[in-house]
């Protein structure tokens, strides 16, 4: 066999080790599942005392199905065959007479988890890398290889639907707690534990009474509840898969083959195709950080405001030593508090949160500059101030260190004139809120040192953000395409459309937030300044001018287009959305994206789509503004 290894132990236990040839991670390609079927054939003839399934890859157990095979599903027959391949195989695995166990160390996703679920026992290794999920919904499809059948049986319908409908990952401890795995052990005892558990004859933990009720007589209540939950996040016309998952669980016990029309509809839907595209774009962005061997240990951030402080906190969360500089400790302290909240929320374990807190060092005197591999400037947007700062930084920096600006409105070409080596300055442009936004624009000014740009991408990748290389131009990609879109939305308000209606039009289009609410969130003064720079000299909308004059600056002042209470806009009722409004509002964004591609600001249309999706939240099911344009043609 090419991908599997079978080891028979003296005890009579057989260990099937997956080591997919030529790849660093395991995926369930046709070859891999075919070989696994052969293994089952073989073991049927000579039943072992027990079977352990595990991975030989350092990265993890199994990352899921082979995504490459998804794009070849051009006929309904092929789609159904794909579902049947895993569904039948794992049913066979679940039915064998000898005990079976999946030893899960590292990622165990999608089809990988479905394989594990078909085993009698699942043993999770308690390490940070151990993550289990059924993320199919994020690709616009469903866990059709038994996930919808077996996950609810193991953890109860409520937790199972939550995992399947959100794609949420659970770690080893959580998996143990919710009953997804039978035990969770440190790596030092995993070999012993796997064999003991395999031969234990231990029955599965029964579902709590309430969960049994929910899986039985109250099934329709659960399903309807789940539908309501999903409806709050995703509209069925945009994202059919979560609704299909609920239907398949409720009506067909998770057997997708019982509803071939659903399989055809979902697999052939543009959403599935586009979400797969988005996934690939994400992988492509990650790839930008893989060039070269630049590794960051220490980051120095200057400016402890919202952006600088949150960038520093994120870097410390991701394991880097961070020094955070501002004019006084009092200015840095609020950022330390926000960071502390982030660490507690994301790391949960107190010792890990404390370690992150220790790594984030307030540095009012800027001693960290001399030690830093990356220096990020995030002070207020003033050319002279930045010049003075760069002049003081450059002689103190390590020779190979990156010097970056987080500026969103100033030209790098103007900022770098203060440097002895101007070619070293790059833009590393984060979005607010830093912890939520996956995209970071890496800005290359004319004549910049390509090594510095590559290193900046590697740094962005290292902190688990998606680097998008862009050329230096006002607004780069993301802000540049948002500006005309927000302008169009405000023009509509000028023309008498209610802000609520404008926002509803774009929510129905698939945006995560309406454009008027977005203006309120970024601040009307900021929108005004950005408009001056990015709107090609167009006049500011009246509705914006009037509010700015009255000091109504949006969320931060408590009143903008909406009144804000406890961080939420108080929206009135929505009128019927005029036909064509969404198209009218989105058109300037599409036009600007095309123009930026034509001007070479971003390398190609795919990357532009990636940037607009990950930077603005632009409806992912469309595959991006330019993809949407092409497919509607």
């Amino acid at each position: 066999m090419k991908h599997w290894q079978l080891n028979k132990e003296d005890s009579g236990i057989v260990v099937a080790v997956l080591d997919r040839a030529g790849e660093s991670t395991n995926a369930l390609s046709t070859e891999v599942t075919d070989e696994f079927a052969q293994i089952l054939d073989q073991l049927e003839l000579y039943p072992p005392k027990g079977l352990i399934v595990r991975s030989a890859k350092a990265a993890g157990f199994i990352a899921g199905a082979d995504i490459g095979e998804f794009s070849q599903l051009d006929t309904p027959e092929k789609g159904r065959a794909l579902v049947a391949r895993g569904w039948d195989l794992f049913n066979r695995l679940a039915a064998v007479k000898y005990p079976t166990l999946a030893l899960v160390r590292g990622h165990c996703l999608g089809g990988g988890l479905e394989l594990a679920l078909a085993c009698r026992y699942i043993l999770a290794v308690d390490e940070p890398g151990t993550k289990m999920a059924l993320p199919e919904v994020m690709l616009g499809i469903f866990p059709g290889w038994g996930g919808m059948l077996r996950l609810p049986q193991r953890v109860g319908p409520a937790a199972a639907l939550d995992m399947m409908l959100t794609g949420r990952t659970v770690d080893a401890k959580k998996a143990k707690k919710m009953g997804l795995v039978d035990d969770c052990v440190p790596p030092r005892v995993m070999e012993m534990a796997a064999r003991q558990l395999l031969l234990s004859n231990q029955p599965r933990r029964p579902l709590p009474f309430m969960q049994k009720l929910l899986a039985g007589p109250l099934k329709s209540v659960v399903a309807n509840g789940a539908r309501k939950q999903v409806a709050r996040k995703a509209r069925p016309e945009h994202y059919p898969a979560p609704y299909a998952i609920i239907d398949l669980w409720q009506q067909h016990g998770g057997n997708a083959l019982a509803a071939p029309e659903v399989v055809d509809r979902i697999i052939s839907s543009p959403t599935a195709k586009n979400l797969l595209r988005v996934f690939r774009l994400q992988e492509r962005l990650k790839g930008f950080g893989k060039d070269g061997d630049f590794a960051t240990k220490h980051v120095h951030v200057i400016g402890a405001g919202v952006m600088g402080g949150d960038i520093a906190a994120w870097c410390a969360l991701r394991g880097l030593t961070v020094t955070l500089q501002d004019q006084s400790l009092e200015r840095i302290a609020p950022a330390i508090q926000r960071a502390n909240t982030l660490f507690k929320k994301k790391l949960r374990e107190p010792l890990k949160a404390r370690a992150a807190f220790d790594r984030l060092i307030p540095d009012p005197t800027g001693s960290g500059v001399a030690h830093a591999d990356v220096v990020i400037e995030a002070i207020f947007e003033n050319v002279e101030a930045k010049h003075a700062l760069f002049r003081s930084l450059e002689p103190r920096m390590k020779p190979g260190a990156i010097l970056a600006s987080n500026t969103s409105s100033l030209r790098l070409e103007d900022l770098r004139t203060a440097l002895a080596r101007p070619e070293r300055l790059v833009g590393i442009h984060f979005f607010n809120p830093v912890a939520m936004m996956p995209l970071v624009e890496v800005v290359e000014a004319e004549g910049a040192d390509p090594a510095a740009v590559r290193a900046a991408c590697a740094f962005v990748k290292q902190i688990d953000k998606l680097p998008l290389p862009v050329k230096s131009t006002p607004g780069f990609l993301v802000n540049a395409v948002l500006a005309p879109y927000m302008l169009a939305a405000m023009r509509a308000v000028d023309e008498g459309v209610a802000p609520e209606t404008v926002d509803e039009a774009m929510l129905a289009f698939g945006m995560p937030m309406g454009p008027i609410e977005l203006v309120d969130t970024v601040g009307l003064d900021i929108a005004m300044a950005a408009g001056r720079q990015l709107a090609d000299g167009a006049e500011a909308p009246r509705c914006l001018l009037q509010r700015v004059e009255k000091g109504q600056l949006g969320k931060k002042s408590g009143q903008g287009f909406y009144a804000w209470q406890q961080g939420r806009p108080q929206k009135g009722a929505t009128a019927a959305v005029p036909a064509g409004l969404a198209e009218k509002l989105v058109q300037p964004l599409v036009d600007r994206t095309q123009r930026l591609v034509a001007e070479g600001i971003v390398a190609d249309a795919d990357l532009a789509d990636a940037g607009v999706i990950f930077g603005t939240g632009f409806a992912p099911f469309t595959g991006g503004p330019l993809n949407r344009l092409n497919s509607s043609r």
Partner: protein
Amino acid sequence: MSKTIYVVDGARSPFLKAQKGPGVFAASDLATQAGRALLLRQPFAPSDLDEVILGCAAPSPDETNIGRMVALRLGCGKKVPGWTVMRNCASGMQAIDSAIANIQCGRSELVLAGGVDALSRAPLLYSDAMVRWFAGMMSMRTVNQKIGHFLKLPFGELLKPVIGLMKGLTDPVVGLLMGQTAENLAWKFGIDRKQMDEFAVRSHQRAMAGRQAGHLEEIVPLVDGDGKVYAEDDGVRADADLAGMAKPKPFFDKKYGNITAANSSQITDGAAWVLLASEEAVQQWGLQPIGKIVDSQWSGLEPEQMGLGPVHASTPLLQRHGLTLADVDYWELNEAFAAQVLGCQAAWNDEAYCREQLDLPGAFGKIDEDRLNVDGGAVAIGHPVGASGARIVLHLLHVLRRNQAKRGVATICIGGGLGGAMLVEACQ
């Protein structure tokens, strides 16, 4: 000593007075925040240290070998050894002395040494009766046995925890509270309440003046997880005066004594570090030392008189270098109690004491008060036991440099009947 021992730099946390209940920072938090700022301004990386030595008299139960723990938290990396020393009130000075010893014998070139304590976090302990009850519960097997045992719970004991801090501040051999040993000195040398109170007021005034003059650049402000900044020693009182000082009742010898909480050092949380280097390390990293540690001395005396430890340690140290009290430009003599500092002055000035206890031909003299604890002492800023010995060495070097002076002695009394002293020289 054969090799020159350089002090390259140092830093300390503000000293935070114990308020109600445990302070916001654990001992290791204090040492980490002060230490990381100190290391950040060095030209070398934390991993270039040869070792980290931390003195601590009362680490909390989850801070076992706090020296290693803090070394790791400072980012020194797994390879830098870290260890903990304990010599009660001189633990921080002991850490420095241990570093000196290792540099002298060539084991280390570059050492971070200091002291820490978070006295506000001293634990409450169960009495032996309660511990026996818990142990009994563990051995009960059946539910009935357990219920029966539960009914035997000694409720009175449950509400009478042993105060760990009081245990720590009680001599384990003679059973006296530290304050009672200081009452002994007051009795012996006829030091009255007014003298103590005057001394205490002056300590506050000097500490406040030192702060206002910017003489406490050794302090690294702390930030807690709620974004609150702690920039100064918070026990120092701008309004300290004799009238106020006269109000508190005697604490240790109740009713009839002289020593109050106000004329004693405060119960405080804090950390202090110095960075020690050999000549080779100074050259290798291009360091600019602030001073040298010329010699050190430890001495013992009756535990009942432990407050005179500085007299017993400093005298032989000075004699060894042919110096008198007057030859020392500045002194830091840790203020465990006002009465105890005054007692040291009285002892040196007492012919009989010097002859009988110190083998001197006559009275040794008196330290010029204008050269003793010029920026106040532990009565005003507090005495986080393990940290004080390192703080006075560091602060003394700053005092010497500020006054373009050369020679100083930092000395400290130690519960259990010990004294420690270090002779230092400033590098200008």
